[in-house]
């Protein structure tokens, strides 16, 4: 057995062919999901992800949408198999889950819908998709705000439960989800889209298995994960051994005590170990980063710095160990709130990146300005309907050692698009009076930090409210090698008017009178190198273009 080659071990060519099919299936699921979704957050902003897993629950392929969703994908299957015996799961079942502590999720608005793929009566793979729903109940419209103090305030919690049983939608579960949302019609449409996406994925996997046979299919997936592992191993093996530390701070309810995120990276023996000991205890604010989001952040940064073209699958991350003491911000325990983890992950990725880039001379990125989150709600006077608009406005990225930081893009753990102003004004009663790069917000430097964004909303409806979450409103993105800090973010009502009022970084349902203006100003990225070393032609260009 050890000498003779196994006759059905697929060669590397079959592996490439089968893995391409799997990647194409994940991409195709994503297309169906975005094409048929109803809420602007999914259809315009593409806040959703799709993936294919092997029978053991390893992620084999994730479509490129939202990196942070990778963590929830990793957790999804293990939570299902922990709760259900294989015999309990039937052909035509689909599960829905969102709970970070019991369902593998990373915050409640992300509903993960998982479908097993059967062959000859046994589960041989899974497909899944995550969509960020604009409201899943809880105390704040939009179900994601830093002000929540426990997860019970953040909305409906779902362990893995059957959304589809034996091919038919399970109305018992659907009705619970719909009743708990402030905008049930949208939820119904979005869930339909999620179910349709999984159908496409299941069908595609079944065709692939029919074509190659189950043995070749399963072994090809294993070989693909092994190849991915080897790629990352090769990249890690090239790093110098050593211990590298970095830290930064996120906002907390206590204005005088920002919350510390701390990372110690040890590279030794061909492995990378990230230890988050030293991180502050979990917060009574929804900025905690649940386990799945921590994994996704570390994996994403490692991939971006070491091998951006490596497949985003379970194999690629076998050389990475992650430890964090339970009860800290990056390993919270129930019932710590986690809704706004995406903003904290923006800072956490800076910390991980700062640690890792110490091992990579001439690589890396100065710290970044994460997005601002706003949840507008109220009644639209044009049709009398209650609405919730979940929107994020990007900040700017840190400068690189060789060029300026990117203006106005989401940080690396995320990827959702903006909401076009013309779509926004069709769907919600606001008028955007200014949507611009926030000049001066990028840190000065030989290479400047990316600029954040200014977006001014004129309120057109009666008795509307806004809940807001910001990051880097008190601690700036810090410059590198003499580069300047990025500007702080801000939320302001009626800027430039006598009644101008700056709101904090965590705001619950602030009233917005008709005619008032809400300004979202997002933080900028930090600069790299001394401003005096800046290329004079770039300085001229900055002046010419009023930057």
């Amino acid at each position: 057995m050890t000498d003779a080659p196994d006759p059905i071990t697929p060669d590397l060519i079959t592996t490439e062919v089968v893995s391409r099919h799997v990647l194409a299936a994940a991409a195709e699921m994503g297309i169906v999901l975005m094409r048929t979704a109803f809420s602007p957050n999914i259809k315009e902003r593409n806040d959703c992800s799709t993936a294919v897993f092997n029978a053991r629950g390893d992620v084999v392929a994730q479509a490129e949408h939202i990196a942070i969703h990778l963590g929830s994908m990793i957790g999804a299957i293990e939570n299902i198999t922990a709760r259900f015996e294989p015999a309990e799961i039937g052909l035509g079942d689909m599960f829905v889950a969102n709970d970070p502590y019991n369902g593998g999720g990373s915050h409640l608005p992300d509903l993960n819908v998982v479908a097993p793929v059967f062959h000859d009566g046994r589960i041989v793979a899974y497909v899944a998709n995550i969509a960020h729903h604009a409201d899943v109940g809880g105390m704040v419209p939009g179900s994601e705000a830093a002000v929540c103090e426990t997860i019970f305030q953040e909305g409906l919690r779902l362990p893995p439960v059957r959304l589809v049983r034996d091919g038919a939608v399970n109305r018992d579960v659907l009705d619970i989800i719909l009743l708990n949302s402030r905008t049930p019609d949208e939820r119904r449409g979005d869930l339909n889209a999620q179910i349709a996406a999984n159908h496409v994925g299941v069908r595609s996997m079944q065709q692939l298995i029919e074509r190659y046979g189950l043995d070749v299919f399963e072994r090809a997936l294993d070989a693909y994960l092994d190849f991915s592992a080897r790629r990352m191993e090769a990249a890690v093996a090239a790093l110098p051994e050593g211990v590298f530390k970095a830290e930064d701070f996120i906002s907390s309810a206590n204005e005088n005590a920002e919350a510390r995120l701390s990372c110690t990276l040890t590279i030794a023996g061909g492995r990378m170990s990230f230890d988050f000991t030293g991180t502050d205890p979990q917060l009574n604010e929804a900025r905690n980063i649940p386990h799945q989001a921590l994994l996704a952040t570390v994996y994403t940064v490692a991939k971006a710095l070491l091998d951006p073209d490596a497949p985003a699958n379970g194999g690629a991350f076998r050389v990475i160990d992650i430890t964090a003491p339970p009860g800290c911000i990056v390993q919270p325990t129930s019932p710590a709130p986690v809704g706004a983890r995406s903003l904290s992950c923006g800072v956490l990725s800076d910390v991980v990146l700062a640690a890792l880039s110490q091992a990579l001379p001439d690589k890396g990125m100065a710290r970044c300005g994460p997005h601002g989150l706003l949840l507008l709600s109220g009644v639209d006077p044009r049709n009398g309907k209650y609405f919730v608009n979940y929107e994020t406005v990007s900040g700017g990225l840190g400068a690189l050692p060789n060029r300026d930081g990117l203006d106005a893009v989401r940080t690396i753990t995320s990827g959702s698009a903006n909401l076009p102003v013309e779509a926004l004004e069709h769907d919600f009663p606001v008028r955007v009076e200014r949507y611009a790069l926030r000049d001066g917000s990028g840190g000065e430097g030989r290479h400047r930090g990316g600029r954040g964004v200014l977006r001014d909303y004129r309120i057109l409806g009666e008795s509307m409210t806004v809940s807001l979450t910001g990051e880097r409103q008190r601690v700036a993105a810090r410059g590198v090698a003499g580069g300047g800090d990025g500007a702080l973010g801000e939320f302001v009502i009626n800027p430039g008017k006598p009644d101008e009022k700056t709101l904090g970084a965590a705001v619950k349902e602030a009233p917005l009178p008709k005619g008032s203006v809400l300004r979202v100003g997002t933080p900028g990225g930090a600069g790299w190198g001394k401003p005096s070393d800046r290329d004079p032609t770039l300085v001229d260009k900055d002046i010419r273009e009023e930057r």
Partner: protein
Amino acid sequence: MTDYWIGVDTGGTFTDLVLVDRDANHRVSFKLPTTPDDPALGILSGVRSLLDLAEADGVDVSFLGHGTTLGTNAILTGRTAPTGMITTQGFRDILELGRQRRPSFYDIEVAKPTPPATRDHIIEVAERLDECGGVVMPLDEDGVRDAARQLQADGVTAVAICFMHAYANPDHEVRAAAIVREVWPDAFVCASSDILREFREFERFATTTVNASLLPVMDEYLRRFEAGLAELGVSVPPLVMQSNGGAVSPATVRAAPVNTFFSGPAGGVIATVALGKSLAMENLVSFDMGGTSTDVCLVKDGAPAKRNVRDMAGFPVRIPTLDLHTIGAGGGSIAWADPGGLLKVGPHSAGATPGPALYGLGGEDATVTDANVVLGRLSGGALIGGTMTVYPEKSYEAVARLGEKIELDPIATAAGIIEIVNVNMMGAVRAVSIEKGEDPRHYALAAFGGAGPLHAAGVAAEMGMDTVVIPTRPGILSALGLLDADVRGDFSITRLVALTLENTAALRDGAVDLMARGAAWRVAERLNEDSVEISWTADLRYIGQAFELMAPILTLSGTPDFDEATLAALRAEFHRQHASINGYAMEGHAVEMVNLRLSVAAIRPSAGGVEILGDGADVEETIRPVWFPETGFVETPVRDRASLTPGQRIAGPMIVEQMDTTLVIPPAATAIVQPSGDLTLHLGGTQT
């Protein structure tokens, strides 16, 4: 009276020309290198040679259609005109803000693309409309005047006018354009509502600005081209293929050069439609595989698939185009081993120089062409009808070197390269078929371009497709398509309303508006009213969705009246499509219109024309070992295409060689030579 039609396909490397003598039903073709610095020069020299070859006189040319890659190349090489933009106060950064996405998802090194108009050439003016087109703030006309003077002083030559919600009401843009022309008569100006009358500001502004940046470039090219043709005695206006598969006059292209991005590959698709028609096949996938890239398009029921958005150098350009899927892989693609030890092919290409190792011009990397040589699929003897010396031992060495890295012998490595490139091709076929809800097994693969016929059987087998069609002259099929092009204009208007009777008036107003634009265009193109066919389509979605499906609107009169019967038929069609493409329908859910579209086309007769390949009776069959996945190496007959006679049935395996390509017929397949000389290949045994 003699009557000549000419088709010209300007490719990245070569320009192909074909002339049909309509009376003699005879055709001649000519090939010469493309002249990228001044494309008009090469084409004109080609037209001159073609006329000489046919002993024809320029005045007898009654039709000249051409595809051009000028617009695409100008964008890709940054040779566009300095461009300014006048926009709504508060919105000068829309092009830089984009959709707040990183240009590469994981790779932090990738920078954002530079917009066609940079910030120092973007000027805001006071004006604002709401989402229904109502005026919130009137247009500051003096502001527009000042902006125009400023841009002129800055040295830009083209101006894009981009106002918020202008798709809902173009009045402000129309007025602003008039003011710019008034103060600056020789400016090149376009307005977003003229170029793309659809919502989503970034996509509309980007499309309009890209268009503006091409206006002076296209104008200059057409001027030189028209003057050169006049010198040759050709007096007909040279029609230009658009991305939508229709040809238009120079005047129309001068206003909207953005519509020519797929002018080049579109010819091949149109030719595929004509090929299908002549063979009575309505469902085909066109497969145009060249040296560096491959273009694939679905033709269903005799009509090519369409789409409405394209990425150009990092910016979304929303224009009606054929749904061409292009991948960066072809015969020159380089095979390599990735750090994990997986074999990969492309996207890097050896190009024409150094080219594949086979050429002996210094290429060290194993390319797809080299793998084909190692496996005996391509001749180790001379290429291009014996005019080019080649070095098969260099192919073998290059493949063997790669094989050492991945621990495979040279034959297994070459076989792997072929299989992987075929899988890449399969991805393209999949994208235009399965991902659009079409089963490729119901389609035939139409293979052309230099490498298409080499790989078609393998790709078809991967997809479970049984039939492959190979035209008589795969190398010049795209040029032939230009002869068959219809004259076509597409018009659209956003109408965001539910498909219910209360909106009949709004829908009808939109249709009337489009009809007027179509009529004005028809006059500009000098088309008779009775020679044109018009068709209407609606972009529909469930209320609340953001992505639309296109449904045809059937109407007996010229303009649809949107009565209950029309609306009900549209709703039913939408539910059906949604179920077919997305797997479910929501019959109880309201359906809304997003865009109404009008297409006006003047249908032209087929050019016809037969090219004699030679009777070939004296060409001898040879035999060489050729590798097939199902058999390994097997002694295989090799014949010249010219030796095949209509009606002949050929059992695989066989290699058929002709000047512009090589055909691979696998062992289980049967080929039939059609009366037209086209070859239909039935793979057999692969249908599931």
